């Protein structure tokens, strides 16, 4: 069963007098549980595709369906609720809250978005922190962590709410090669452990090879040889 479907999706922006096509007539599907990458150079439309899947943006034309929901018809409140319930995000710059400890950062979605009780939050946070190997760093603040550790915390934060889909925009861009590989391995392991679909964007050829399926983007369109594996 597909978790993401694009049907003739286009996304255009106005930039002064000109109209920029970030995504042009893209159709694709991503099956549930797949470790999928959007690859391509900067400006190819990877991030736009991820933003559409993440309900952070809406298509100009076409239909985007995520976890069975057409995201084009959602208002701000509903799309926020949808993201909080079904999606997890991992950012290139980690985007951890500097005033919160590792434990609190991971706890944030359960506390402020899902409004769970402390009794529900504590085991969930401990479980994902253990899974990403950061349980012993739970009391530290982001400033006290290395880049790789920060990204592991960010992955734990994305996973803690038990989402159907985790989106990672260039998750290894700010990491050295060895750390990047560890992060990719971790994401794969998490996919296996929690059964969550991972979709990420990258332009790093070393990382592309790790994907089970990838969409090769260029100038806002899928290249002919784009899909491999289970994706189409």
């Amino acid at each position, binding site marked *: 069963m597909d978790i993401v479907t694009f049907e003739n999706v286009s996304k255009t922006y106005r930039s002064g007098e000109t109209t920029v096509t970030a995504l042009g007539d893209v159709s694709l599907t991503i099956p549930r549980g797949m470790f999928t990458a959007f690859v391509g150079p900067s400006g190819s439309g990877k991030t736009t595709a991820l933003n559409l899947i993440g309900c952070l943006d809406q298509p100009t034309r076409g239909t985007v369906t995520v976890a069975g929901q057409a995201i084009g018809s959602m208002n701000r409140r509903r799309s*926020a609720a949808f993201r909080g319930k079904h999606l997890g995000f991992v*950012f290139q710059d980690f*985007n951890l*809250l500097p*005033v*919160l400890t590792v434990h609190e950062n991971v706890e944030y*979605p359960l506390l*402020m*978005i899902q409004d769970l009780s402390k009794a529900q939050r504590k085991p969930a946070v401990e479980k994902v922190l253990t899974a990403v190997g950061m349980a012993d760093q739970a009391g530290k603040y982001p400033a006290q962590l290395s880049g790789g550790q920060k990204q592991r915390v960010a992955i734990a934060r994305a996973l803690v709410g038990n989402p159907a889909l985790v989106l990672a925009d260039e998750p290894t861009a700010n990491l050295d090669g060895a750390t990047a590989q560890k992060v990719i391995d971790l994401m794969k392991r998490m996919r296996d452990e929690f059964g969550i679909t991972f979709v990420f964007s990258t332009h790093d050829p070393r990382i592309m090879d790790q994907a089970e399926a990838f969409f090769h983007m260029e100038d806002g369109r899928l290249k002919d040889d784009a899909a491999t594996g289970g994706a189409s």
Partner: protein
Amino acid sequence: MIKVMSLAIRNLLRYKRRTLLTGLLIAVGVLAVIVFTGLSGSFKRAIVGQITDSVLSHLQVHKKGYMASIDNLPLDRMIPEKPYKKLNETLSNSPGVEGFSPRIKFGAMLSNFAQTTNVRLNGIDPEKELTAVPLLPSRIKDPKDPDVLLTPGQVLLPEILAKGMGVGTGDTVVLVANNRDGSVNGMTFEVAGVVESLMGPGGRDGYLHIDDAAALLRMETIEISEVAVRVTDFDALADVAGRINQALAPMVTPNGQPVFEVHTWQQLTPFYNVVRMIDLMTLGIKIILIAVVLISVLNVMIMSVYERVKEIGTLAAMGTQPSRIMALFVAEGFCLGLTGAAAGAVLGSGALWILNLTGVEVAFGGAGQVFELAPSVTPGEVLSACVIVLLVSVIASLQPAAKAAALEPVDALRHV
């Protein structure tokens, strides 16, 4: 709510110096309001207390029309014996009236056998006068008998006249007065003391016994110029005045005009305008506080939103509802105001305590009177300053918070 507050406090502590400076600015504003309110309030109380407790009393009852020519001390607008008896009965039965004193007010010539000058006099019943103006004895310098205000045959002279004529306690003076019909009468009196001058009406009057005043004015039956009334609860003055007015309303002249008129101290002395001016200045200080809080909190919150656009984008992307993002920033403004207000309240109360320890003296009026102030504020006044700060803090953070909540996550995440 607690989790929002907790996160708001942590975010404020992220920029310690900025938070400290803004909190300090708010605290200084609250401190200024508390100290000014305390000082001005005590100044007001001291002056109003002095005027009402030693000259005017809280309210006065006159014959209708007397007030219009009170400066001339008219003898043809006195309260005759019969209506006075009714008035006496009404006041005696009025709840909230602590005491009252009938007065005969008139102008006379004062002579020390070498010089003569004009003097304004009050004929009083000393015992009753003390129930209406209990602080009158505190104004008497060098009294003949500290335990007795005045006995028949004695006069208390205003300080300024006594000084000018070189008259002191124990000296003999002559008072000459015209009665209502124009006939002149003179009597000798012993000076029982000198009355310190006070600003406002009646502040430079002399006193003699009411029986002597009636005799000097050749009254066949005692007629009263005014009745000074002291109420039990000063804050309930308007109510008591209203009740007395109501009770006196049925007493009318054959023409249907009311026999009496009732005036509170506010209507009797121009100093009430000074009181209102002090209230206006207090309001002005509060408006300055509002401006200080508004500008500083608004500035901090605008900076805070601007610096955290990407963070706001992250929160929104993760699924935080716009209303909660707004609540986070409003809570920051609230916490900033709360900290500043609490610090200001403590500092302000401390400053008043120190002022009370050291003592504050203020000279006021042409008479060179010095008031020792006891500045204090009620918990309600401190609370009101704090509530103003909190309200303004929340209002100031609304716009930046709304801006944060309205940020599109996709744009915010792109922010560098």
